[in-house]
Each structure stands twice: as structure tokens, then as C-alpha cells.
């Protein structure tokens, strides 16, 4: 299940539950749809994500590369302690822009 919100030119996507290989591929499809509809800046709100596997990390990385290729940005926010630990242990914390809240992430997104 995926919740979506628009804040100006920023798409805020809020996946739920786990970002494992199955959920991550579905999520990848959702990102692709937004890209095709012209989204340039996406904030992924991970507040409701309990667990993320390496497959989930890869999908986020691939999505970020796709957006960067079109001069867009993908940032993350509201990681719980366990998810943040996975990002730190894997080294992915240095690849993404990570914020504490949706507001902070949207404020940091490039303005139109």
C-alpha cells in the first residue's frame, strides 16, 4: 500500500510495512509511473516502514539514479531507529539525503 501527497512540485510517497524484494519492485513501478508523469523531485517518507532489506535499498538506489539522470532528486525522511541502522551499517546513509521529517525534506527540495 502506498500513500501519496503533492507539495508543490514535490511528490511525497509513503510506503507501508516492509520494503522487501516484492514490495520494493512494486514501489519501483510506482516511482517509474511518477517519472513518466513528469515528477522531478520525490520524497520517500519511511515513517511506516518497519523493515528494509538489501533489495529495498537497491530499489531506492536505482530510483535515485533514474531521477538524478533527469536532474531530479530523491530524498528520504522519518527513518525509524532500526531502518536508520540498516542505512548506516550498509553505508547507504552517505548516498542519500536523509531528513527527520517530510517538512524538512520538502523544504530542501529544489524550488521550481
Amino acid at each position, binding site marked *: 500500500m502506498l500513500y501519496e501527497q503533492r507539495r508543490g512540485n514535490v511528490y511525497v510517497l509513503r510506503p507501508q510495512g516492509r520494503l522487501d*524484494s516484492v514490495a520494493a519492485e512494486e514501489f519501483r513501478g510506482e516511482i517509474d509511473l511518477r517519472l513518466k508523469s513528469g515528477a522531478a523531485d520525490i520524497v520517500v517518507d519511511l515513517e511506516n516502514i518497519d523493515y528494509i*532489506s538489501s533489495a529495498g535499498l537497491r530499489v531506492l538506489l536505482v530510483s535515485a539514479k533514474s531521477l538524478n539522470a533527469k536532474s531530479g532528486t530523491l530524498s528520504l525522511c522519518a527513518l525509524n531507529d532500526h531502518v536508520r541502522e540498516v542505512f548506516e*551499517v*550498509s553505508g547507504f546513509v552517505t548516498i542519500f539525503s536523509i531528513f527527520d521529517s517530510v517538512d524538512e525534506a520538502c523544504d530542501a527540495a529544489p524550488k521550481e
Partner: protein
Amino acid sequence: MARRPRNIVYDVNDKLPTSLLVGMGVQHCLTMSSTLVLAVILVGIVGGTSAEAHNLVRLSMIAAGIGTILQSLNRGPVGSGYLCPNLIGPAFMPASLLAVSAGGMSVLHGMVLLTGLFQAVLSRFVHKLRTLLPPEVTGVIVAMVGMSLVPVGVSNLVGLGGVDDVSEPAEVVLGVATLAIMFALTVWGRGSLRLYSVLIGVAAGYALQAVLGLRTDLEGLDWSELPLFAPPTPHLPTELRFDMAIAIPFLIAGLASLVKAIGDLSTAQKINDDSWVSPDMTSIRRGVLADALAVVSAGLIGGMAQSTSSSNVGVSLATGVTSRRVGFSAGTIFIACAFFPAVSTIFVVIGDPVKGAVLIFAACFMIVTGLQLVMTRLLDARKIFVVGAAIVAGLSVDMLPGVYSNVPAALGAIATSSFSFATVVAIVLNLIFRIGISNRAVLVLRWGDNPPEAVAAFMHEQGGAWGARVDVVRRATGALVEFVDVAAPIDRADGQIRINARFDGLYLDLYLLYGGAPIELPEVPPAPERAALDEATLRALSGYLIRTAASEVETTKRGDLNMIHLRFVH
């Protein structure tokens, strides 16, 4: 290694400047004095004089001071090393009334001595109580201690404490104003203002009390006749008497007080360490012995039975000063004040509304700290009923005062104390609900299962049944999800994945048996960017995440199957 919480200014090992040490000591003495009125009430009920009440108060102050000092000791067989002062134990009040009615003060002091010796013996076996008192039980006990302060705290706040049964508007103003000052200083105060929030609040309360001309609990005492220095008159040990007919109420109160001490000492440990996960039972055992010796000393010199003070632990958390040296200071000051009648009287003439403000202030912290302790564990239906039923039982005592009026006198100590009743219910239900819980569980994954969903549900169910720590269960679940999702999905494991889980309170062990080729668990992570490029790198990352999630990892073969043993320290 202990991690100092951000809100702690001076932690348990810190030294303080002398002026601060004395100030903190006085602040804690004021909080310790909150139950001195029980001595006044007890003597009043049996028709004693104000001078006798005052003497009992002073002897109880000495016992409390001794207990507070012993509790702060950090070496040797006695003392937890934490700031956890003593005061007159409210849990002993029903039994104390029985004793005084049965045979006067001699019987009271004899039974108090006996109870202290009973607690001292029990203290040797405290480490075996870990199963009996898991964190969700100690947490609800700590919360219940805070809740049990509500009736007496609110009554006092509005001027209905002690022998007073009329609430005057001026008393309500006094109580609310004192409480508001303490809240404001704790929330917005910086530096000394926050450190001395209780002391300043009480001082303001004293001043306002005088301005409003409100009454005190020692109306019959002539201040001008009080000598400057005079030791209290102890009860000679040769005058002690024992009445075994009332032993049970005292032993039950002693047991309840011991359990409360475990809760208070666990809280004292937790507030000093952000990385706290479970009680240090060695320190608690020594602390329970210190508490027992406080009760013994009370019996020997003629004071009232003592218990650890949840209010004082709450004050130390609120002010951010938890240094054990404050215990030495407070204990010494309290003992010294007992020898100066006019000074010790100050602790007793503290107005009910001011007393109520201190109790409510401390209750806030105890209730929330206890609930936080409960929520460190996954709660299944069993645990929910243990916690919920204990709270219901405890609250029923205070909300329906007459409902237990017909219980046998021997059980009066339980049925008339919300804290004691909740404690007994929590311990008994916890024992009963352990029936049917095995410390082992197995999950077998098959073709067609949704492995990540299955392992997450499995760990949630078992974690709840075992009352395991939320963070440990989450880490173990993350490792399992990683294992079944990426490292060894069921198609690569030849359709064979079996997970054996074992939990003994100290460790959570997962044994992952799977077919197919053994997976790698690298000790170094691959470069993150490469994870986007190929499957092999992704699986290496997966193996690394599994290895780092656990405290210990071991790989081996079991027959045709590969086995990974993941151990999580609980």
C-alpha cells in the same frame, strides 16, 4: 558500557560542589519527609501525645538516614550504589496499626525488626527473581507506585491530608501554586533553577503557607519549649516484643516493599544509562539488603518501618542529579536534623498542600517511567492481561475503598494498598500465564509461502509470548527478513528453510537451516553503489547485514543442510 542520558546533569558517579551537594541533600530530605506524617497519624490513632509523635518521627528520620547512606554505598555486600533514599513505608501502615493496637509500640518495633530480618534473608535470593519479575511486571509495579501516590497526593494538595477533613480554598491555592512552581522550574528552568525545582517549590510553599495562615499537623506542640539540641529517646531492644498472630501482614508488607525496592532500584539504574536493557541483579541484591537493614535499624531504635522512596527517585530524574553522593548528603542531613527538635519539626509542619504537590510531582515521573519500562518489551495477550489486570486491581483499591473491607485481617496489608494488591496480581498472573510458553519455537517455510511475511509474523508472535525486548526482536526479524528475502530465498534454498528459535531471557538464538549452496556472510560491506549493479554484490550486502545484525554468528553444516546460528544478546 553505561551511556549518560542527555537529561542527566550529574550522574550516579559524579562529584558535586559542596554547596550543590548540601542543597540537593536538603531537597531530598524534604521529599523523604513526605511520609513522616504517618508517624503522627499512628500515634494519634492510639491516643499518644504530640511529644511521643515527634519522638517517633525523629527516630524514623534516623532510620531513613541510615538506610539512605547504606543504599548509596558502592562497594561491599551492602548498597546498590544508587541514589535511592528511604522513608517511612506507607505499605507498612496497616500492619503497623494492627501491631500498635495489639500490644503498643513494643510490638510494633519487634515486628518491624522481624520484617527487616525477613527481607535481609530474601535479599540473598533476589537474583532468582528475574523470572518472577520480568520488566513488564517491575514496570507495572513502578507505575502503580506512582498511581498509589495519587489519592494521598491529591488529598493533601487540596488540604484533606492527615487529620484534616475540610478543604479550604486557600489550601487549594497553596497546593496548586506549589505544584505549578515545581512544574515550571523543571520545564523551563536552567541550571540551578531546574536542579532545585523541588526545594524552591517547597520553600515558596512554606512562605505562602505562612502568608495564608494555614494549619499544620503538630498543633499541640509548643515551639518555645523545644530545645535546640536533644537526641530522640530510642526504644530499648530489651523492650521489644513479638506477636506471631500479626506476622503475616508484616511479612506481606515486607515482601511488597522488597518488590517495590526492586522496582525503584531498576528505575534508578535505567535513568542513569541510556543503554540500559535489563536490571543489574547484583546491584539490586545489595540494594535490597540495604533497604532491609534500614528496616532492621528502625526496629532496633524504635522508628517506623522503612522502604525505598519512589518519590525521591522521581525527583532525581526531574532535576537531573542522580549522584550517589547526594544520598550520603541527604542521609547525613536527615539524621542530624533528628537531633535538633526545632529543625526536625520543620519537616513535619510542612503543609498538606505542599506535601501533596511534592507527591504529585514525583508521581508523574514514576507513572511514566514505569509505563516506559513495560513498553520496552513486546506484549502479547498474556502480558497485556498481566499489566492490565494489575492496574485494574490496584486502582480498584483506591477507587472503591470499601469493596475489600471484608477480607481477613491477615490480608489487609494487601487489600488496603493499591500498590501491594497490584504487585500480587502482577506476580501471580505472570506465573500462571507462563503455563504453555515454551522457550523454543520452529518455523518451516515452504514453496508458496510469503517468507518475509511469515518470518515477521513468527517473530512478532514469539517475541510477544516471550516478552522479549522490542529492539532485539526487531533486529532479529530484520536479519531473518534479509535471509529469506535476498540471501537464501526459498528457490535458491531448494525449497528447504527451517528456523529454530530459542529464548532464555539472556539470549535469543536463531538456527537457520537451509538447502542449496551456502551463503557468504562477509565481514566487510561491498561499496554501496555497486549493489545497484549485480546480484552477487547484492547478496554480499545481504550477507553482511545478516552478520552485523547479530551479536554472534556461526556457520556450519548439519547433514545435507547448511546452518547459520545467530545469537542476539537480550
